[in-house]
């Protein structure tokens, strides 16, 4: 018999290296005389889209399009160290470093422009749609490329180097106090599953995932990160398990370590919650790992809702579920199997 159930999972997650470990990202920025800019950073885009985020940040700051920004990453000959692509840290930490560096180069540019436009302060200058000019006076503006080109002939360069460090402290071992992570990410997910009571097989039918990302710099990528994490969470909940024997992995292959296929991953509905993180670039914070956390609880709770058994070790394999169902039947008799006594 197939039974359906719904479960909720909530999660919070400290992003970054944490515990006072030096969590530093760096970036170099140069604004060029063709109206483009280059961002160099050690941060490696492994598919999560960090390079796109950096281009967006630089473009936003400089009044350009993301295509106008060249992002150079992960080259130890040319790019400054930004730590690993791990710990859900690049959008927040490296994003902050990029933003600081862009602002620094921009400040020089604005100072130069203020002088050129005979303004007393750089505050009256704006960068917009590839132009640089005096706010509120359309007659006093010129293409950014022209301004940088002329400046260049006069020996001006708009370059910068900046770093950003996430501030955390180790936890006091005596009293558990401290600020081990910053920022924290929050999320909640609902899973609907179908459990086959004869075989213990679980099919996840649907997941709705709501995640606080501070600010979604790139909503498409946020959705992609959530869906990817949910798929990993489904695998983690139902089938993925590293089998160790005396320190040796017994299943180091795709034939023995199984991950979900397209048919095993449910429809995923994402809800992006934007609750500004004031220390993040444009209010953004990371999302990579946190989106996987609630999936586990949601799926396991949904199994409980469906058939009334609590699976307390992962993955929730058909063996464990069937054994729990048999046990439950033994304890509560036939009826225990049929009706969900706990809900």
């Amino acid at each position: 018999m197939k039974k359906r159930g719904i479960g909720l999972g909530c999660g919070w997650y400290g992003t970054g290296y944490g515990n006072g470990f030096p969590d530093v990202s760096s970036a170099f920025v140069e604004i060029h005389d063709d109206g483009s800019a280059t961002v160099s950073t050690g941060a490696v885009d492994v598919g999560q889209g960090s390079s796109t985020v950096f281009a967006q940040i630089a473009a936003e700051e400089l009044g350009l399009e993301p295509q106008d920004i060249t992002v150079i990453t992960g080259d130890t000959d040319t790019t400054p160290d930004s730590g690993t692509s791990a710990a859900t840290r690049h959008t927040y930490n490296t994003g902050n470093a990029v933003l600081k560096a862009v602002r620094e180069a921009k400040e020089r540019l604005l100072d130069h422009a203020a002088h050129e436009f005979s303004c007393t302060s750089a505050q009256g200058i704006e960068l917009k749609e590839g132009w640089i000019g005096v706010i509120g006076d359309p007659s006093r503006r010129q293409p950014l490329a022209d301004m940088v080109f002329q400046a260049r002939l006069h020996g001006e360069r708009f370059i910068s180097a900046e770093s950003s460090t996430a501030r955390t402290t180790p936890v006091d071992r005596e009293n558990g106090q401290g600020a081990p992570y910053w920022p924290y990410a929050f999320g909640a997910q609902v899973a609907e599953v179908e459990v086959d009571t004869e075989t213990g097989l679980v099919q996840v039918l649907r997941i709705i995932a709501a995640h606080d990302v501070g600010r979604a710099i790139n909503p498409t990528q946020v959705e992609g990160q959530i869906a990817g994490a949910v798929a990993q969470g489904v695998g983690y909940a139902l089938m993925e398990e590293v089998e160790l024997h005396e320190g040796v992995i017994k299943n180091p292959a795709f034939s023995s370590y199984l991950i979900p296929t397209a048919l095993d991953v449910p429809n995923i509905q994402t809800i992006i919650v934007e609750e500004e993180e004031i220390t993040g670039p444009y209010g953004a914070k990371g999302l990579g790992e946190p989106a996987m956390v609630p999936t586990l609880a949601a799926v396991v709770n949904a199994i409980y809702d469906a058939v009334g058994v609590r699976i307390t070790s992962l993955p929730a394999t058909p063996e464990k579920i069937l054994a729990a169902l048999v046990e439950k039947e033994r304890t509560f008799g036939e009826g225990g199997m049929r009706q969900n006594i706990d809900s």
Partner: protein
Amino acid sequence: MNIELRVNEQDFRLVVEPDERLLDVLRNRLGLIGTKEGCGEGECGACTILMDGKAVNSCLVLAAQAVGHELMTIEGVGDRLHPHPLQKSFVELGAVQCGFCTPGMILSAKALLDRNSQPSEEEIKEAMSGNLCRCTGYDKIVKAVQRAAEEVAR
């Protein structure tokens, strides 16, 4: 042994070992490195190519077995200037993250669309079920195939 392979509408004369896998010949002898090796055991689909229009795992086929068949790798599907609707939709919808599964995904999807231009969501998932993706959760991949199907139909 001497063999002739027809890949992406081009003929190649090659000297290969009888037990050399098609995957290795494509990558190492023909330089068609768009085809990836993820597992080498038929479990991931990263090495998917088309043989007479059908998806096969090139890690499980010997180059010698491919003689006399029409092969297509990702390089033959389209390029930067002339992307196939699938390549376009994958990029536009964000169906590519690390990109390792992408060539295989596109070829499995192409094999599907070539015989069924209006597949249902279930048919798409079924057709891609031999292609593992660790990054995307398949969500945007399925949507990209749907979008490409619409575009091809137009």
